């Protein structure tokens, strides 16, 4: 896959994101797959931030650690990001009279970097434009380096200023200036892009938060309550910004406990309601999680991960809250944990999460990550017919309501553990959604026989849910072609990667690389993390020469869950927990290292016991 990358760096609040957004959208419309990645500190203004766009004529969903073009909006970028440039990369900066220190002079020579100073202040003062217009100017300069049509950029920028004629004209002049700017030393610079693929031009550009918000609206969410926290705030903002069109009830709650309780009350009353938070806010929600399990109230909570413990790295990414999602809150109860991985399933899983919550009358936690929440995906248009609204054993028919007894609500004999549910206000026998241990009607009942029967009833849902959840998805490099879904039963794999969440995008990009696509490598991806199904994992693992666990946490939490569920041990791990996502080149090197011991796919067999996954007790 041909890849090109550009990174814009500077102070938070300088307009890094708007340059990134213009270039990403422009290139996407021209027929390129783009992937946007943001890094920023927990500050409103100042502090060093970046927006990186990786570009290809294939679908690209990962970032490289080093880039072809670096645009530095301030001198801190020159000091901090010079090392991020590739061999013969281009540095675009705006700092007049900057003297590179010796080690950077050497770097420029060693890597044959090309350095361009764009005299932004001069040009803008000549145009009588404010400093913020440097965004347009620099976007046009980059646009010209990419050899793209200036009219396409003008059309894009014109959409933003359609109602402001004077500003529109000024922006057009900035584009002309930036586009025609030629550095007197370096001459006309160009960055070669592969031929475009027109199918991308009709794609969407979405962040994971936008995808999730769209999925929530699509799923019939009618009430959203949330408390601001990174990285779940963009979802709250997306939902709040559209409330006049969706007619949704949106409540910024006084804390996460309130948000979770508001949503619980709304779900009890029969609507679909959503809240999202980060791990530290989820701690506050955890008592409500257990409450809903007890009263068998469907609820969906989004847990957007960032590195902890405590406040941790608030604006960075992690997969450190898998245990929190699977084991937090008191008592034993059935619940379900899903994890989104990109702009596609962030949309698809929202209706599914609500369906599962209502079908099994239990809490569903949807994990996302800062990386997914804020990354920009080139996304094929969503299939708007696919989703169903399934509400399980919800009784709404007036005739059926009439024959219900109070004791139908928590009937301990319900075969799957799921009993009839009907909504307050229904013309029917009433019941109590009782957080104390209760009998079939919701009356408090502390007797031994009842306690056991009700625990058994609720826990039975875990069995029926496990059987209903899909097994993990396996993709395999298909002899030099693109990745294939699934794997043949007798197919031996050189390597099987196991992971979840945002790692999938990077792993699948890595498996499409020229060096790996001809190998036999599989990736097993967990979307449904609790209850955890392991049959397919065990079957595929048995045919793999080597297993590697890939996670963005320190302990290998999925690996620990797998071991707990089926005893399979994955000793080889690629773990990252520095707040950064996996980068393409970094992960590629780690995977290459693991397959380089084997000459090629044809000469390997899957029966080498010595490198197989270890199992306690020697069972294999």
């Amino acid at each position, binding site marked *: 896959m041909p890849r090109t990358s550009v990174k814009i760096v500077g102070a938070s609040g300088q307009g890094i994101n708007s340059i990134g957004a213009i270039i990403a959208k422009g290139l996407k419309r021209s027929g390129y797959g783009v992937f946007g990645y943001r890094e920023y500190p927990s500050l409103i203004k100042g502090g060093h931030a970046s927006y990186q766009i990786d570009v290809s004529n294939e679908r690209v969903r990962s970032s490289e650690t080093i880039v072809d073009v670096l645009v530095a909006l301030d001198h801190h970028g020159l000091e901090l990001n010079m090392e991020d440039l590739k061999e013969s990369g281009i540095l675009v900066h705006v700092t007049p009279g900057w003297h590179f220190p010796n080690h950077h002079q050497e770097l420029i020579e060693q890597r044959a970097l090309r350095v361009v100073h764009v005299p932004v202040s001069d040009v803008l003062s000549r145009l009588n434009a404010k400093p913020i217009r440097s965004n347009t100017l620099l976007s046009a300069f980059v646009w010209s380096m990419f050899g793209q049509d200036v009219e396409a950029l003008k059309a894009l920028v014109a959409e933003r200023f359609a109602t402001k004629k004077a500003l529109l004209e000024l922006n057009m002049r900035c584009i002309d200036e930036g586009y025609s700017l030629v550095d007197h030393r370096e001459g006309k610079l160009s960055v070669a892009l592969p031929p475009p693929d027109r199918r991308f031009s009709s794609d969407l550009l979405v962040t994971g938060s936008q995808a999730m918000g769209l999925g929530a609206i699509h799923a019939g969410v009618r009430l959203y309550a949330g408390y601001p926290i990174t990285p779940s705030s963009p979802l709250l903002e997306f939902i709040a910004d559209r409330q006049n069109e969706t007619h949704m*009830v949106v409540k910024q709650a006084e804390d996460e406990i309130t948000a979770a309780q508001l949503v619980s009350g709304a779900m009890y009353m029969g609507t679909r309601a959503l809240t999202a938070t980060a791990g530290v806010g989820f701690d506050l929600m955890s008592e409500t999680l257990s409450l809903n399990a007890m009263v068998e109230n469907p609820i969906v909570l989004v847990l957007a991960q960032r590195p902890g413990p405590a406040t941790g790295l608030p604006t960075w990414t992690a997969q450190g809250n898998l245990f929190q999602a699977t084991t937090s809150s008191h008592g034993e109860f059935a619940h379900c944990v899903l994890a989104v991985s990109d702009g596609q399933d962030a949309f698809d899983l929202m209706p599914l999460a609500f369906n599962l919550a209502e079908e099994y009358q239990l809490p569903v936690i949807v994990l996302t990550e800062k990386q997914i929440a804020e990354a920009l995906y080139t996304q094929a248009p969503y299939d708007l017919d696919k989703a169903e609204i399934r509400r399980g054993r919800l009784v709404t028919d007036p005739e059926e309501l009439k024959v219900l007894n109070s004791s139908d609500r928590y009937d301990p004999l319900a075969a799957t553990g799921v009993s009839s549910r009907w909504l307050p206000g229904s013309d029917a026998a009433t019941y109590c959604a009782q957080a104390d241990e209760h009998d079939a009607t919701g009356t408090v009942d502390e007797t031994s026989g009842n306690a056991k029967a009700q625990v058994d009833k609720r826990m039975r849902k875990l069995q029926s849910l496990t059987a209903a959840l899909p097994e993990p998805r396996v993709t395999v490099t298909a002899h030099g072609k693109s990745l294939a879904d699934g794997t043949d039963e007798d197919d031996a794999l050189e390597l099987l990667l196991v992971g979840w969440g945002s790692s999938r995008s990077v792993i699948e990009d890595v498996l499409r690389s020229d060096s790996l696509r001809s190998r036999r490598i599989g990736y097993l991806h967990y979307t449904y993390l609790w209850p955890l199904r392991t049959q397919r994992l065990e079957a595929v693992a048995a045919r793999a020469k080597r297993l590697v666990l890939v996670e963005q946490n320190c302990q290998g939490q999925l690996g620990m869950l797998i071991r707990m569920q089926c005893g399979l041990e994955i000793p080889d791990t690629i773990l990252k927990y520095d707040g950064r996502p996996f980068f393409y080149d970094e992960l590629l090197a780690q995977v290459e290292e693991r397959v380089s011991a084997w000459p090629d796919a044809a000469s390997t067999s899957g029966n080498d016991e010595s490198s197989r996954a270890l199992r306690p007790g020697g069972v294999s």
Partner: protein
Amino acid sequence: MSKSRESAALRLAEYHSQTKCTWCDGCGDYGIWTAVRYALVELNLRPSQVCLCYDVGCHGNGSDKIQGYRFHGLHGRVIPFAAGAKLANMKLPVIAFGGDGATFSEGVGHLVHGLRSNYPITFVLHNNANYGLTTGQATSLTWQDQPMNTSPNGVPERTLASMDLIFSLEPTFVARGFSGDIKLMTRILKEAIQHRGFAFVDMLQACPTYNHFATHKYLLERYFDANANGHDPGDLQQAKALACGSQDRIACGILYQREDIADFYERLDPRRGLKTTCAEEVRKYDVSEYLQELM
């Protein structure tokens, strides 16, 4: 027996639960429980037409001693749960019950924001000035210096001035009842349930087992119906004075009420003019109109 009284008795029976009451002899919960059923019947509400949400405490043990769509949740959290339920179905009256421990300690933030948000719900405070269910510890409404379980030398903290707090939050409905006067409580509850916004109802109640200071007798001797004495609930200054000054005589009745303030739901622009409730709107929504800006 007249026909209307007969049918009222029948409707009262609809609220009857087989579950035996477990409150102590002389507990104020009996009176409040009775007044709630009277108020609902007199408002012509059947059990299937109300949502009753209970916090944790002795009062919460009443959740299975009445009919209706009920919820009995976690300590301190009843207000946001009830608010969420109401916002999802504005057609159903939602009444939340909580004790003074839950409301002024564990869940005091919810009370503050419930009043501030002016959610269209009724909140009934079971105020017996102690944690009864956990066997008589001090709440923030227990009198300072009063010896209680876990504070044998007397409560060191100052007593929280609950009505000063309530009035600082610009309430739209404040009433006070006494568990010994069912008729008064019934009148208050009927008005509270019909109130436009957040109705705060402070029910002073006896706790014969653990409250040995503000006893049934103490309350009985001091309480009076301020409305019967000519108090106008529209008079904010007088309402505050009556509510906050309860040393010698305890003013009960509807102390403050205004119906000209929009509730939280009415203030939501996106809901204006809609006839349906959120609960009725669950279906698949077409999101294509939101995709254009993302192209």
